[in-house]
């Protein structure tokens, strides 16, 4: 369970998160929508401790992420994150990209890491690409590799930060299919996305962020068909 309590976060003068309260249960798929600069991506990087917070608390399975003494490296093993820019490691093959963290972080043997990597890459449809270098693949393939790389750590939570935003429109579908598959397998996921159709289809709940505040959170039918908050209405009208 991820519990977010009254989280505030600023970058210098700019207040990005202004008191976010949110709980995500095990097995839940939450999507977060909202305009640029609404704070939705920042929230994800705060959840796995890549960004510090100014006040409030984020607790993952009873561990306070931002408390002094929390072993963030250990915590991050169970919270996978995939970014808009997939950040493939260009000097490693697809297989090596996925094997690296299981080997170095979990201390698995080469054979064990390879078994896991092959399994995850097959899962995301890249079984044919094991020995290819990332720059020989399309953005969609690299993004799926990044998803496999995060999954290879057997995370309990997955955070997706606009993972289709940098992709050619033709390639969005294959990545969304991968996310749908994970959702159907019961993975706990928080997806920041601009894909409204996808959000409506896979989410248990949808949250709408506006200027650092969570303006509205509801089941997808409710939020998309009968939004309550004026900003949600405005946003949905503009994106439809």
């Amino acid at each position, binding site marked *: 369970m991820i519990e977010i309590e009254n989280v505030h976060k600023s970058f210098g003068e700019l207040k990005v998160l202004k008191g976010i309260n949110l709980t995500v249960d095990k097995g839940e798929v939450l999507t977060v929508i909202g305009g640029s600069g609404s704070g939705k991506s920042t929230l994800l990087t705060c959840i796995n401790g890549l960004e510090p917070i100014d006040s409030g608390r984020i607790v993952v399975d009873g561990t306070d992420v931002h408390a002094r003494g929390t072993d963030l*490296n250990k915590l991050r093993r169970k919270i*996978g994150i995939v970014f808009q*820019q997939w*950040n493939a*490691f260009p000097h490693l093959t697809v297989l090596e990209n996925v094997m690296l*963290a299981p080997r170095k972080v979990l201390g698995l043997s080469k054979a064990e890491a390879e078994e896991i990597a092959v399994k995850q890459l097959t899962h995301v449809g890249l079984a044919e690409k094991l020995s290819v*270098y990332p720059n020989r693949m399309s953005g969609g393939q690299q993004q799926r590799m990044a998803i496999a790389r*995060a999954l290879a750590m057997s995370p309990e939570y997955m955070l997706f930060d606009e993972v289709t935003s940098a992709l050619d429109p033709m390639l969005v579908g294959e990545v969304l299919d991968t996310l749908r598959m994970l959702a159907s397998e019961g993975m706990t996921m928080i997806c920041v996305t601009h894909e409204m159709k996808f959000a409506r289809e896979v989410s248990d709940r949808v949250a709408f962020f506006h200027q650092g505040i969570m303006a509205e959170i509801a089941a997808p039918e409710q939020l998309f068909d009968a939004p309550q908050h004026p900003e949600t209405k405005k946003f949905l009208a503009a994106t439809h």
Partner: protein
Amino acid sequence: MFNYTFHWNQALRSLPQMLDGALVTLQIAILSMAIGLAIAIALTLFRLSGNRILGGFATTWVEIARNTPALFQIYMAHFGLGNFGIHLSPYTALLVGIAFNNAGYLAENFRGALKAIPDTQARAGRSLGMTSLQAFRYIVMPQMLRIAFLPATNQMVWAILMTSLGVTVGMNTDLAGVTQELNARSFRTFEFFALAAVIYYVIAKAVTLAARAFAWRMFRY
């Protein structure tokens, strides 16, 4: 004007001596690169440390090494330090001077290579649970080496050619020094220096080609 008669035989007879000199040249170049590399790594870390004194020291070193003549750097090591009672042999002075120069250029090369790797690479490693040291070791450093490698081999070639400046501080066992002595005895200046130039060329070219072959094998992405 062109009634000069070439005497190549005399030069060719001295080839074994010149090749011995070439070995000394290569030795100084390799040693100066090894020392330069070690210092360059330290200077790079100093500049990354955020400590003003260490950073200032490193920046000063890089600035002097890159913006003053290599000849002066070698002169300083031999005659300059002599004024303070530190007397280095021509061999040591040459080695110190070139290592000083190498360190400056290599440190700048490393800094550029580090800057070329986006922060998001290390961040992606951290998000997989790696420590910052692991992210550097397995993700940043291999990419950095690839970028820094070919410029570093240029510096190696430059180091080989710089050794010839040793004649100005009395170095007489390296290729330039040996050639200069043979010339002084025979006055066959053109033949001896032409032959020495060919030897320098072959060594420099061999280093460049070997480095390229190595890079081709190592950095195949």
